[in-house]
């Protein structure tokens, strides 16, 4: 499975939706993921990709990890994986 599909699967699982219901321009709020769900999603991303996501729940907008949309999250994960490989 590609990074994109895996991230979508994580978000869909958290939102209790089908992966096909998740659109790239959706925000987490759009799919009903609250602050606790966001923290759990970050944890699932870290576990799945064996990466450390720079995320502080005190200030979700800060840091380099862009969570503004599904597409942004996928891009951020791809970048972290690329850095890890490099």
């Amino acid at each position, binding site marked *: 499975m590609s990074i994109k599909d895996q991230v979508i699967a994580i978000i869909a699982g958290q939102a*209790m939706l089908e992966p096909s219901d998740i659109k790239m321009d959706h925000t987490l709020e759009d799919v009903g993921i609250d602050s*606790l*769900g966001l*923290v*759990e999603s*970050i*944890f699932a991303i*870290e*576990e799945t990709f064996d990466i450390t996501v720079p995320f502080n729940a005190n200030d979700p907008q800060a840091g380099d990890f862009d969570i503004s949309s599904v597409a942004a999250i996928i891009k951020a994960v791809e970048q972290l994986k690329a850095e890890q490989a490099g």
Partner: protein
Amino acid sequence: MNRVVITGAGTINSLGADVPATYEAMREGRCGIGQLEIADVDRLSIQIGGQIKGYDEAAHFNRQQISLYDRFTQFTLLAARQAIGQSGLTFSGALADHSGVVLGTSGGGLNTQDENYRAVYEAGKNRVHPFIVPKLMNNAAASHVSMEWNLRGPSFTVATACASSNHAMGQAFNMVRCGMAKVMVTGGSEAMLCFGGIKAWEGLRVMSKDACRPFSATRNGMVQGEGAGVFVFEDYAHAKARGADILCEVIGFAMSSDASDIVTPSKQGAARAIAGAIKDAGLDSAEVGYINAHGTGTAANDKTECAAVADVFGAHADKLMMSSTKSMHGHLIGGTGAVELLACIMALRDGVVAPTIGYEEPDPECALDVVPNVARDAKVDVALSNAFAFGGLNAVIALRKH
């Protein structure tokens, strides 16, 4: 002072997944203690417990709930659902603001701690699930009950080891009695049957390897159990006005501290709590027909408890019945008083006194009517429930037939 009645009861324990099933098991003198089914049981020298077998959390809760509900919280919510359902109450407006929840537990989310210590120490993981703290905290169960049923008044958790539930129910009783709350959801829960939870108790060398036989000369220690008991304590006038089915009345409560030893029980401390509850209820001691004993099955507790009862009741001690249902459901530690209150309600309401099973041989130091092995039909008007905790903290509650 307001009168206080119980209008709902719920439970899950090794004898049954609800109150009727538990009553039936108690009537039949059935034993819920058996071989433990947990990880690494082969490394334990104590391998029995009153475990809830065949429990499937996914049958009751969704994935997100499970990520937040430790086993002790799950048990609490299942018992609370039954109790509040039976009461017929819904909480909104002023009633919600004047209703709360106070629960007892000793270990709180001990399974969550056990699992995650394994993950970081044994498996060497460096990343843990984000909800461990809200899952393991001792007040998680009380908080989830408050959220689920919109209880917006006084709510907290009591941790006094083996007396936690009785202390919690005593607080709930006094809060309704003094008018601080109209309705209090109360009781307690424990889920300590994990490797670490049993290993710690093993260390004390007070556990039995084969059975819990309270008051029997052949007793050789206590056996742990798990589960929850939850009740709805309600202002009598409020319950009457809405035509609620009243299970019994709560008439007295007392607590005392031994102030002597961290584990060895004290006859004086226990006697002061029992006498205190009788006085608080305005009873003549001869009115007490049944006592649900603390009755752990240890050498020390059982003889001390019998001596305390003999001191408080004098000649009447030989007339009343005192049984320990721990012989059937095990010792639920912080949840035990709540499940044991059910035996008191059954005695008052159904006229059936639960037995002390596993009783083999009389002990001259426990020479009371302990209702050995077989339940008994008897008219009981007033019942007491004893709890004497490690740390010397004692709590006794008094109930009357309604």
